[in-house]
């Protein structure tokens, strides 16, 4: 079971971009463990994880999920505002570069607050992914693709993109 930090995919352009939504909820225990000045705050590391999952799926689609795509480096990450329960996050990941060894992505994070109807830009994240079967050291990994679990397939199916995982 992998802990998903996105709820659904809302836009997809092959080999270019993928957009996912995350609804932040008090049902998530982690918010109760991260209360600052009385306000439950989604940890920035998990906001980045949401972008990593969005961008990771985008990278995975380019090989039909044959490659094992691992987050290797957070090149840049900035968040201008706290994220709390009731907020909705919109992750837009853009594929910048890809080759046999890995891929780089840029991404923007928009947020819509509870009772709000407008999106505001609150963050940017640049990531680097490794296709670990083509790692520079020549290290071998299990053949089974342990990165893209059934959870990811469920998200693709929900978005009507099940054929990408076949």
């Amino acid at each position: 079971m992998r802990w998903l930090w996105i709820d659904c995919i809302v836009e997809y352009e092959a080999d270019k971009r993928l957009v996912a939504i995350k609804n932040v909820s008090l049902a998530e225990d982690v918010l109760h463990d991260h209360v600052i000045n009385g306000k439950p705050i989604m940890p920035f590391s998990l906001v980045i994880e949401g972008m990593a999952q969005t961008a990771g799926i985008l990278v995975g689609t380019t090989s039909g999920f044959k490659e094992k795509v691992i987050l290797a480096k957070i090149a840049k990450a900035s968040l201008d505002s706290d994220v709390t329960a009731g907020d909705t996050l919109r992750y837009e990941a853009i594929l910048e570069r890809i080759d046999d060894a890995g891929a780089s992505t840029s991404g923007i994070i928009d947020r819509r607050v509870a009772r709000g109807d407008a999106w505001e830009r609150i963050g940017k994240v640049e990531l680097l992914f490794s296709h670990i079967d083509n790692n520079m050291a020549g290290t071998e990994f299990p053949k089974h693709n342990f990165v893209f679990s059934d959870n990811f397939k469920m998200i693709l199916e929900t978005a009507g993109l099940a054929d990408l995982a076949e």
Partner: protein
Amino acid sequence: MSRDDIFEKIQEVLDEALGVDEDEVTPQASLTSDLGAESIDFLDIVFRLEKTFDFKISQGELFPENLTENPDWVADGNLTDAGLSMLKERMTHVDFASIEEGDRNISKIGDLITVNSLVNFVEIKLAG
């Protein structure tokens, strides 16, 4: 593009990829031992060089990869004569003088990739 122009752009690339100050990026600085680059940073640097200079870099073209897979190239953790010849032929942008007579342990090979190596590489690629 002049060599100085290339060097300045590489300073920016390494600043972005490794978070180092531009004044640390001297021509002689080794990417690994002086600037703290790890293996994944090499991929980051390759992507940034491609974007900055608008050319494609094949896997293993800029940095040596998977050397240990070939027993003719590496024996007991050390680069063989054949391995060294292969690298010198494929990687004309790198100065191998220091390992020709000295320590040939493959862990030292990364240290040979200097800022100057990158400038040489870009200069060769741009020349066509």
